[in-house]
Structures are given as C-alpha cells and as structure tokens.
C-alpha cells in the first residue's frame, strides 16, 4: 500500500514541513494541518498481497526500498511516499516526535557544531563537505517501568577524637533496610538494527512534551524505518540502562553514614506500558580526506553526536599548552611562597 498526500489546491505531492509542523505543498505553498487533512486527498493504492513491490503512484516507477523502510522518496520522480501497510497492525507506531529542525536548520546547526571541535583538523571545521543529509524517523520502544527494590545494608558512623596521647575511634554499626517503589517513564531504546546503539543513546534526551499520537503524514518527505527488534527483545537493554539510575536512587535514600556495604539488594523491574515511537534523526554523511564520517543529529533538539576526525597536532598542542602553563603557574606560586624557582 503506497500513500501519497495530494495537495487539495494543485494536486502536487505534499511533504511534512519541520518548521511549521504542517503538511506543505512544494508547488503552491499551501499548508495543511495534519489532524484535519481531508481524507479524499490521501491517495492510497493496495499492492497485491503476494508482490512485495511498490509502485510510485505518480510515475509508475518501481520503488526501491529495503524491507525496513516505511517512508521514502520515489527515486525516479522524487515524490515523498509512505508505505502504509508497513505502518499498520502490529507495525503501527503509537507515538511520534515530529521533526522541528528543517534541513536548512540542520545544515546550519551541523556547521556550527563542526566549528566548536577543539580537537578536529582545521579542514574539518569548515563544515562545507556535507555529502548527504537524510531526515529519518528511527523506531524506538519507550518503556514505562515500575518495580520494587529491597535493600539491606550495614552502615557505619565513625567518630574520632583525641584523649591525652590516645586517638580513640568509635564506630557505630547500623542495620539499614529500605523498600522502594520504582517508576520510570518512557525510557527509550532504539529498535533499528542499522543504528548504532551508543550513538542513539547519546542523542537523548528528547523533549516528550512534543510527543504526538502517530499519524502517517508526519513521515511524508522523510525516510522512516520499522522496528527490527520487538519490545521483549529490547527490554534487557533498557533494564541495563536504568539499573545505574536505580542504584543511584537507592544510594540517595541512605544518607548520614560514613560507609555503607550492601548485604542484600534485590531489584525487580517490569514494563507495564510500551510505546512504539518514531524519533526524528538527521543523518549527516560527511566527506573528509577520502573518508566518510557519519554523524547523527537529534531532529528535535539539534544535538550532534558521532566521532569526528581528530587532529594529532591539535591534541599535542592542547596537551603541551595546558601542561606548560600549569607548570609555569605552579612554579610561580612556589616562587612566591618559597622564594626559590628550582
């Protein structure tokens, strides 16, 4: 099933505009609210059940897609298309955070980011060799997690004082016990096999106040993928993500002790709600010295992540600069205090 959004004015293919948050027509400039877009302008064509081949409704060309793709452009005429049957039933996303950064803004934000690279080579800092920028909705699972933690620990309070020529150390031991209700909301984990987990983790956090109920027109004009891992497969990853959070919360509930050693710590976390959600990510493919570097930008906040090239010379310069100035400063202080330079 291939879906086009036809402009009610002129019949062109409309695409989602990140700046205004509306469907907009590249031809006549008409903008339509996604919630109220007229049904009759959504052109859908069911593909035969067997054939996994999609045809562009504009030009009839075969759409070249990967199995995970849910939104793309026709490679022949460029019209934005959404593959609706890959977004229905089990595959229907519950929520979406629409792009708020348009392509031009993304390019500008990326350039600004390259200028801040204090360890990147000079040539990289121009930010003028962007090969390709792709706006992509990446599938995530958001987990609402509740659980219980039961912790037993031995805490000590130490008091040291001097009596005559004897130092006396008094140590009080306490049995510490805590029972804690835990609740974490909408902890994300990316469900796309293609995307680097570490990269996607660093793109967080997203602002959930922009979280919208999913509607297909948001995808028009962007690439989108469906999930490779289901909610159960990813739960262990989310668990490993929140365990440090839980540990730090437990630690914050036990205070006033000099030392704490845990004798028993039981954490039981369950997911009670899961949202299949699409997050907006700008992928930036950048050519530098015959190598392609890939960066990802949070399509909502503009945060850029990805390993930039590192200039050995700049690293050495920073290291030497800091070391020499620290050494000089220490020498100056010791000269002022001690009166001797060496």
């Amino acid at each position: 099933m291939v879906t086009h959004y036809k402009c009610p004015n002129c019949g062109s293919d409309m695409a989602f505009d990140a700046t205004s948050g509306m469907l907009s027509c590249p031809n006549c400039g008409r903008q339509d609210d996604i919630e109220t877009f007229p049904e009759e302008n959504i052109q859908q064509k069911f593909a035969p059940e067997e054939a996994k081949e999609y045809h562009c409704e504009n030009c009839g060309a075969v759409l070249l897609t990967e199995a995970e793709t849910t939104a793309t452009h026709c490679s022949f005429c460029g019209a934005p298309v959404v593959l609706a049957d890959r977004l229905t039933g089990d595959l229907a996303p519950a929520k979406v955070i629409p792009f708020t950064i348009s392509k031009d803004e993304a390019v500008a934000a990326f350039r600004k980011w390259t200028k801040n690279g204090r360890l990147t080579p000079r040539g990289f800092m121009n930010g003028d060799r962007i090969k390709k920028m792709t706006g992509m909705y990446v599938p995530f699972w958001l987990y609402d997690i509740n659980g219980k933690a039961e912790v037993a620990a031995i805490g000590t309070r130490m008091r040291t004082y001097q009596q005559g020529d004897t130092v006396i150390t008094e140590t009080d031991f306490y049995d510490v016990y805590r029972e804690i209700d835990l609740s974490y909301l909408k902890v994300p984990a990316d469900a796309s096999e293609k995307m680097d987990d570490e990269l996607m983790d660093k793109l967080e956090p997203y602002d959930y106040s922009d979280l919208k109920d999913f509607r297909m027109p948001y995808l028009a004009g962007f690439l989108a993928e469906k999930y490779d891992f289901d909610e159960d497969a990813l739960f262990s990853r989310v668990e490993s993500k929140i365990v440090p959070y839980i540990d730090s919360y437990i630690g914050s509930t036990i205070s006033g002790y000099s030392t704490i050693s845990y004798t028993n710590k039981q954490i039981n976390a369950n997911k009670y709600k899961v949202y299949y959600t699409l997050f907006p990510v700008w992928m930036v493919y950048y050519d530098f010295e015959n190598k392609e570097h890939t960066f990802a930008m949070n399509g909502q906040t503009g945060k850029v992540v990805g390993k930039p090239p590192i200039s050995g010379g700049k690293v050495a310069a920073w290291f030497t600069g800091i070391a020499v100035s620290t050494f000089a400063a220490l020498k100056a202080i010791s000269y002022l205090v001690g009166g001797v330079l060496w």
Partner: protein
Amino acid sequence: MRKPVIKVSALILLLTILMMLTGTAAFAQTDQHIYDQAGLLTDSEISDLEAYAAEKSREQGTEFLLLTTDSTSGMPIIDYMGDFYDNLADQTGMENAVLLTIDIGGREFYLAGFGNAKTRLDNERVEMVLDRITPYMAQGQYAGAFRETIETADRYMEYKPGVNPESIFLQTWFHAAVALILAGGIVGTMLYNSGGRNTTTAATYIDRDHTRVTRDSDRFRNKTVTRRRIPKNNNSGGGFGGGGGMTGGGRSFSGGGRSF
C-alpha cells in the same frame, strides 16, 4: 646617540667594580673555615673543603664553619661551641655563620646558625640537616658530613624563612607531575567527549510521583572502639639542644645536636 651608550656602559662598569670591591670587603672577614683541633680530616680534605666552604660562604653571605675537638673539657658541647664562636666573632667581626661542631670525645655533634643564618637556617631546617648528616657521622665520614652540611644548608637558605624546603609542593618533579596529569586529564576528557556526551541522568526518566521509599529502618546494631597511642617523637641517635639558645657573649642562635 653614541654618548649615552658610553655613559651607560661606564656606569655599569663602575657598578660592577664597586660590587666586586664591597663583595670582597664584606665576605673577606675570615679566610679560615675549618678548625680541625681533633685532627679528623686529612690535609687534602681540609684544602678541598676550605675551597668549597669559601665559595659557598661568599655566595650566601654566611660563613660555613667546622669545629672539631677531642674534648670539651667538661662543658656541654653547646657552651663549648658558644665560647668558640664568641671568641672567633670578636676577633673577626663576623656576623653570620653556620657552625658544625664535632666533639669526638663525647661523640656528639651540634649544628648552629648565627646572625641571619638563625632565621634562614631555623631550628626545623637544622633538624633536617642533622637528619641528613647523621649517617655520615655514624660512618666516621666527617669530611662528607661537613660537605653535606654546606650543600644542604646552602640550598635550604635560599628558601624564604619559615617555609619547609623539602615540602612536596615546592618540588619540581611534583610540579611536572601535576602539570602532566592535569593536561592528560583535560585532553583525555576532551577526546572522550568529542563524539558527543551522554546527557541523560538518573533524573531524566524518573517518575517522581511514584518513586518513593515505602519502608525503611535504621537500627543500631553494635559499636566498636579502637584506641591508638600517638607515638612520641624520639630522635634516633639521641637529639638534644633543639631550639638553639644564647652564647655566653650574648649571641643568639638556632641549632640542634645529636650524639653518634
């Protein structure tokens, strides 16, 4: 343009000559630094040390002196040393001196700082010098002990009064280590963060309305008490006369002694 240059260089020349004259005048108070009454040193050691002591004395503006004796004729070494110095100072008019006295009969030695050396080589520094020369004394290397005294005292006296010259914060290797560790840490952090930082924290996804402690208890269990005696400061080899004092002739000094 030429005239001022000649004037300036003439002035510099004059100043240099003046400084050399006054310098020799001020420090030519004594030409003998070693009074080896006990005969502990060989002739070549004496001539070596005389030269070394003379050089360092000129640099510091303080005379480095060595006195050895077989017997203090029943007097405490401090008094014996005091009388000797009063006598010497009255004769030569010397003001500033570092004096190491070795009583081979009583197997004791005493280090004293007079005049400006009283503050520049204060009691704490005297003790530190004593720590360094005690091994030499125990091994009978009296020339080595005096050389070490001059070397260390000379070094310590460069520092402002009251500062511990062996303090780790004044050591060059410490400065270098701090500089390298700091630079490594900062640049390392920059490298680590160059690919973007994780900015989510424990507070990002927490649901504060439903995360809470439902039961807690902190029950006292038992108590232990440990006592530790503070070890007394006892100088190895037996220290005495720490804190300096006053000679019979009214010259006050910093100082300290050990037996060996």
